[in-house]
């Protein structure tokens, strides 16, 4: 079926450390994956995306890794800052721009 899930609902990280948020998906035909960040009271905002013909993509302080063999993707945030506190969602394009989201991971930063 079409589902996107997350391993952990919450993640606590020391400020300055790297954060890794994981996501599993079930649709082998999905060809595009996106990570979104949602701050309290706001709509989700795009962070980074990756197409199925890639296994790694880097942005500013963020890296997304895609492992199609085990249907897993991860978001790595380098040098985590207080402003990174938010809920992070992975999403997949299951077919024809039908974008399905996972349930989210709440990232909190310890000073």
């Amino acid at each position, binding site marked *: 079926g*079409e589902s996107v899930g997350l391993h952990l609902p919450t993640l606590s990280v020391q400020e300055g450390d790297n954060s890794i948020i994981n996501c599993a998906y079930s649709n082998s035909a999905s*060809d*595009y994956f*996106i990570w*979104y960040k949602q701050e309290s009271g*706001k*709509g*989700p*905002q*795009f962070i980074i*995306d990756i*197409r199925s013909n890639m296994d790694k993509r880097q942005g500013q302080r963020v890296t997304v890794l895609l492992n199609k063999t085990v249907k897993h993707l991860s978001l790595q945030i380098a040098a985590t800052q207080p402003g990174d506190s938010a809920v992070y*969602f992975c*999403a997949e*394009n299951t077919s*024809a*721009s*039908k*974008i*399905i*989201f*996972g*349930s*989210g991971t709440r990232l909190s930063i310890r000073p």
Partner: protein
Amino acid sequence: DAGITQSPRHKVTETGTPVTLRCHQTENHRYMYWYRQDPGHGLRLIHYSYGVKDTDKGEVSDGYSVSRSKTEDFLLTLESATSSQTSVYFCAISEPPTGNTGELFFGEGSRLTVL
């Protein structure tokens, strides 16, 4: 920020009443989406549109209908609201590059409470 306006931003209504949420965009994007967000469920796709008068169902479409009579507006209607439809509703838009999928831009959300 993408030009997306949702209205109303907050609404309280009673069970059995009809409710319409409006999403208005000024970006001329082809795709528009309605999601609902509930604790523990993340964002769930209700309906989406890939052009004027072209719509399709999402994951949780029962109890909802949509209409898109012009590019800039996508309406979500609850014909007879139920308490289970209490949620925050997000509209999103996208303009995929030819042959690809594009990122979604989200509105600020509409909080609906059904008593």
